[in-house]
């Protein structure tokens, strides 16, 4: 059937009403915080910082939600790929510190791009090994998955300590990304704008792949009913491996971005971020990329606003937000799978 035929068939048909309410939540949260923040410039700074943090968390969490949704795997080892990605980047960025410090976009890019490629490539390959060796024997066994993937993360963390030492490794931002833009009176760090842009690119790319390609259709269908996808003649195991590698690579990318954001990496960073990543996945609805995106923005914005207004409250913001969302929608904002 041609695209034209499809358009003709679909032209007069009622479209499914979309559930836009969760999409409005980040904007609603930002507007709700506005009256409590003393100046609009501070609000702008906090909001963009929250968006940047949210995008980085989204990049790290999006792979996990797909892995859980498609493969029904509770991968507590996902954090290991975040830390490994960040460490892989240091292998390139530390020796190329001169290029990072040069006041040249091209030299900065010449250092950062290979670092990102190495981080994503290495974590994708490690993801392949992790799925084949660690995860495959425990498909369908959640308790064992939790134990073995937690164990995997501990082992990965100790290996990082063994190879790179216990000390934090500085990961300074490239010179081009240092400093801030001024929007009115609000100072917005350049790196945060880059983080927002990269997060949006990742989000849009994932949506395009999931909605406009047959691979994407298979992933969405597989998240819902693996058995039926196989009964239609598709070898979903290969798709599993591909998604696991992609999810691990995204964790690696998120690790690099988080490392640059914090300007240091340490072996425990993956484990520390996993709580946040799981909260985002649960808030978003298991298996949903859009839900994960909204969840990440909500968590980051709420943390930032609470940290500014009531610093002690920031410690429980994530959990409180998750409780509130689950009371409203017990399966998360956009649940895809009922698992």
């Amino acid at each position, binding site marked *: 059937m041609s695209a034209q035929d499809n358009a003709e068939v679909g032209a007069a*048909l009622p479209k499914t009403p979309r559930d836009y309410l969760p999409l409005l939540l980040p904007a609603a949260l930002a507007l709700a915080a506005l009256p409590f923040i003393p100046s609009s410039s501070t609000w702008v700074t906090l909001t963009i910082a929250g968006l940047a943090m949210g995008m980085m968390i989204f990049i790290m969490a999006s792979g996990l939600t797909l892995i859980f949704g498609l493969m029904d795997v509770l991968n507590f080892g996902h954090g290991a790929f975040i830390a490994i990605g960040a460490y892989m980047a240091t292998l390139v960025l530390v020796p190329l510190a001169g290029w990072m410090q040069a006041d040249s976009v091209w030299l900065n890019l010449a250092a950062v791009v290979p670092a990102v490629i190495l981080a994503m490539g290495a974590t994708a390959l490690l993801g392949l090994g992790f799925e084949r060796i660690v995860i495959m024997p425990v498909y369908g066994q959640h308790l064992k998955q939790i134990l073995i993937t937690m164990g995997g993360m501990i082992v990965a963390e100790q290996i990082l300590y063994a190879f790179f030492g216990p000390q934090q490794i500085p990961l300074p931002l490239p010179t081009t990304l240092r400093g801030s833009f001024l929007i009115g009176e609000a100072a917005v760090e350049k790196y945060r704008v880059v983080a927002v842009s990269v997060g949006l690119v990742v989000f849009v790319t994932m949506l395009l792949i999931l909605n406009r390609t047959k691979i994407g259709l298979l992933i969405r269908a597989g998240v819902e009913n693996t058995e039926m996808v*196989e009964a239609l003649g598709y*070898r979903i195991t290969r798709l599993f491996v591909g998604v696991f590698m992609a999810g691990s690579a995204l964790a690696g990318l998120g690790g690099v971005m988080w490392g640059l954001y914090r300007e240091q990496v340490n072996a425990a960073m993956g484990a520390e971020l996993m709580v946040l990543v799981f909260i985002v996945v649960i808030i978003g609805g298991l298996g949903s990329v859009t839900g994960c995106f909204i969840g990440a923005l909500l968590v980051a914005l709420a943390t930032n606003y609470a940290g500014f207004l009531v610093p002690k409250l920031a410690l429980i913001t994530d959990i409180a937000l998750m409780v509130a969302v689950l009371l409203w929608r017990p399966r998360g904002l956009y649940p895809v799978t009922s698992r």
Partner: protein
Amino acid sequence: MSELLTLSGVETHIGRYHILHGVELGVAEGQTTMLLGRNGAGKTTTLRTIMGLWRASRGEIRLGGERIEALSTPDIARAGIGYVPETMAVFSDLTVRENLVLAAREGAMDPTRLDWIFGFFPPLKKFWLSRAGTLSGGQKQMLSFARSLIEPRRLLLIDEPTKGLAPAIIGALIDCLQEVKRRGATILLVEQNFRVAQEIGDMVGVMDNGRVVHTGTMAELAADQALQHRLLGLSLDTHQ
């Protein structure tokens, strides 16, 4: 008429439960074979075992003479078997169109075939761009059927298609099956509704306790109320 599908001594275990106890069944090419039996007799397990969704622990399954019991489910599907499960299993997050795009494994959907399907199931055209999760139970069953028909298959396995559906929708499904039959399709159909079975079936296998306890023509079984009562615990007169 030659057998397209043959099950010989097929046994299936699910966990520690022994469900099929040596199923012997043949499905003749170009015929519709009904698989009847009481709840729990093993009908659904038989279809799932043929599809490789549950592994046969013993016995042989042959499709066109080739053994398939050791193949993976995707390979069995690619060998030419279309499957309509009891649960319908439409992908609710995908639109009607996307469900059919996935089912058209070999490439783009054939517009002529799609029109033919729309002829039986107009709601699929009406809700072409709607998410399958928003369809009614009957419409989901139509979509599940359409998925198995969007490309020609050597064999269709259909599990209780009329379960819980309104009479009008059952009528549409029967019309569709009759037309598919006329085109020479081979069908193995699990059905609880004896009227439907009588209307569509050429041959019949009756299962009990994980075995096929009777095979013959559907016409013979429909004409013999004593046999129906013995095999199925019903007679046509009491099962209107």
